[in-house]
Each structure stands twice: as C-alpha cells, then as structure tokens.
C-alpha cells in the first residue's frame, strides 16, 4: 500500500467570508452551510447557542468561523443529504463571528439526543480563524445534563477542574431556550481542545 503524507494545514486567514459563509455576510453566492443546524420544524426542542471567541488578551475575535455537528433529537447522525430535505435536520452548521457588532456567533438547532450509554448530549465544534494555523476541536455539553455528564467517556478524560469550559449555560430568556458557550483560546478559563 503506498504511503502518502498528509497535506499540511494552513490558516483560513481573515477573508474567508465570501467563500465559506457568503449569505451570512451578504455576498451574492448561495451558502452551502448556514448558522441554522436544524430548521424550526425539525423534531426536538428548539434551542439557540450563542457565544464569543476570546483571544489571549480577552478581545472577542470578529473573524473566527465556528462549525458545529451533532446528532438529532433521537441521537442519530445525518447519513446523507437526502435525509435533510425530509426532516429539516441538517446536522451541520457554519457561522462566522464577523456580522454581529459584539462578535457573537449564533446557531439555531435542536437539543441533541443521546448517542450511547457513555455519551451525554453534545455538539462537536470546529474552531478556525486568522492566526490559527490548524483548526481546533472542542465540544458543547448542556448544564442540565449533570447525571449524563458523570457517565460521559469524553468528559471523563478531561481533568475535573477544566470540564466547566465545555458546559453551555442556559440564558435567562423568557421566550426561548438559549445557551451561552464562550471559547477562550488562552487564560485561566482556556477551553479544552481535543486531539481528534
């Protein structure tokens, strides 16, 4: 078997918007991926996830791209594009932090189901930005699922004092279910990133 070498990663740079998220940034090109991970008619509890990406000086990054991937309310991952049409569940979202004046990202989805006995509901996250030569992986859990967290194999691999960096906090909005998940690249609350 031939052994080829992996192509090196490089940064997305600052000017990705018209290529990766054109509709969000008002370019005349159809977006293949949007900040909507699940349409409102998809089965499950509608939620939004919002947050910021902070650099090592505490500045909110306004040229980051976040991608999210998750299972549906029944714990199943999307297997084919055709599934999406019927269910309204896309399973994947892409959002830039450059269209909100406060550099927030916002994703509409549904609360993911459980994918296995040793796995609490979660969303997998890819983080990219100018200055980052290789994308980073992290994960979002939900604060109310404490019992499931104690059985989660991925959380078990994270030092207890760092687990809170992976837990989204419910926001006190009256009319909708929203969670805050901030990503800290450095500092005392540095987010846990994974070697995937």
């Amino acid at each position: 078997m031939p052994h080829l070498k992996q192509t090196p990663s490089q940064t997305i740079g600052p000017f990705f918007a018209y290529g990766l998220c054109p509709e969000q940034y008002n370019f005349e090109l159809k977006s293949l991926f949007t900040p909507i991970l699940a349409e409102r008619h998809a089965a499950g509890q509608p939620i939004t996830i919002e947050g910021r990406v902070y650099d090592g000086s505490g500045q909110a990054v306004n040229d980051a791209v976040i991608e999210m991937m998750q299972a549906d309310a029944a714990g199943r991952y999307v297997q084919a594009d055709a599934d999406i049409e019927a269910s309204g569940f896309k399973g994947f979202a892409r959002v830039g932090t450059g269209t909100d004046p406060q550099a927030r990202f916002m994703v509409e989805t549904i609360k993911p189901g459980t994918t296995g006995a040793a796995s609490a509901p979660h969303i997998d996250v890819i983080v990219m930005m100018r200055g980052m030569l290789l994308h980073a992986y992290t994960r979002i859990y939900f604060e109310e699922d404490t019992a499931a967290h104690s059985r989660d194999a991925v959380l078990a691999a994270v030092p207890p004092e760092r687990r809170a960096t992976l837990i989204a906090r419910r926001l006190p909005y009256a009319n909708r279910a929203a969670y805050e998940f901030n990503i800290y690249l450095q500092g005392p609350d540095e987010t846990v990133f994974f070697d995937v």
Partner: protein
Amino acid sequence: MDGSTPHPIVLTPRDWDAHPPYRYPDYKSSVLRSPSLPLISLDESLKNRHAPVYGASRLGPLDHDLTRNAAKNGAPLGERIVVTGRVLDEGGRPVRNTLVEIWQANAAGRYVHQGDQHDAPLDPNFLGAGRCLTDGEGRYRFLTIKPGAYPWGNHANAWRTNHIHFSLFGDYFGSRLVTQMYFPGDPLLQLDPIFQGTPARARERLVSRFSLDATQEGYALGYEFDIVLRGAHQTPTE
C-alpha cells in the same frame, strides 16, 4: 452511527510532523490565538465518525468556474488558470464525492471582503469563491484567475505570497482540512511566515506544480495540486 458500537474503520492519526504548530511567533496573530495547554486525546468513536456529503445538493452549475460564476458584464481581468488535482487518503485511495471549497484574491491581489483595505482594484466580474465535488477518481477541477500578491501587516514590507485557500471535509469528522495552495517558483515563499510555519519537510506539499497535461490549449495554463487527507486503516472484522 451509535457512538457505542464498535466500528471496523480506524482513522489514521493526525501527523503532527506535517502540520504547523498552533503557536508560531513569526506569524504574529498566532501568539494570542493559539491554545496554550496540551490537547486532550479523544476515544476512537469521534474521529472515526463518518461525515456525510453536506451541501452537495445545493451546488450550482458554475460553482467550479470562477471566471464565470460572478461575471456581471464581461470576463474578469487577469491570467486564466486551471487548478486541478486529486484528493487521496494516505493509502493512495481516492476520496470520492467529497466537497472542495476554494476562495482567493483577484488578479490585483484584492479580496472582495469588506475588511480588505488594500489599495488595489476590485474586479466587478470576479468574486473569488468556488466549490465542487471530487469525481470517482477523487479529482477536482476549477477554472479561475491567478491570484495576486498583497501586502499585510505582519512585519515591515510584508507581502502574502500568491495563494488559493482550500477547505475539505473528507469522509470522516477527523479528516477535515483547511489549507492553502501556492505556486511553484514564487520568491515570496521564502519570506512568508504562514508557509514557513509549516515543518520544512512538509512545505513542498503545499506548492502546486505546473502541468502541461492540465493546461488547456489556447485557453489557460494548468496547475496540479494533490491533497492527502487522513484516511481509514481497515482493520479485520471479528
């Protein structure tokens, strides 16, 4: 796939000798934007999770042709080129039907992005974004305009070398790759901290090669750029 079900596919690990580090001080913005703590290893089930071909049904007929997909009242200015290559895994197997997204500056070295303040002209007939799916042999092909170099603020008299950004998914959650393709013989490569931040033995994999085979007679020079993603080690099933 149920995360608890054993799966016969095991993705090859990330080759840390191939990729730039998160922190590379010569590339100034990496200093405050790099994780400082070691990454935590994940169990196999996540990296091995199969990722579907997202977005394929929304591709347009001109999405692969940047010389036409944003034309308003004529052709974009600059040198037309063909950019083509194969997406393979480390075993040399083609990665079929996978999405390749590209974006780039125009011939004058200017991006349409609002944040680009470089004093070079925009081209009303050029956006600089394209995407396509690989075919049964893992091949992709774009028609575009050769991107120009442009100044940036990293250090005194800093210029980004000509490049095209690439984004790929591959078949697995762990095979995601975002990279840049460069052009052979470009003198700016020696001075570019993003290119130089890549381990020396791996840098040349980012440089495309001129190809007469890919050149379209009477129309455009061809450049070939093969991309190798993490792939499956097939293990015996029980």
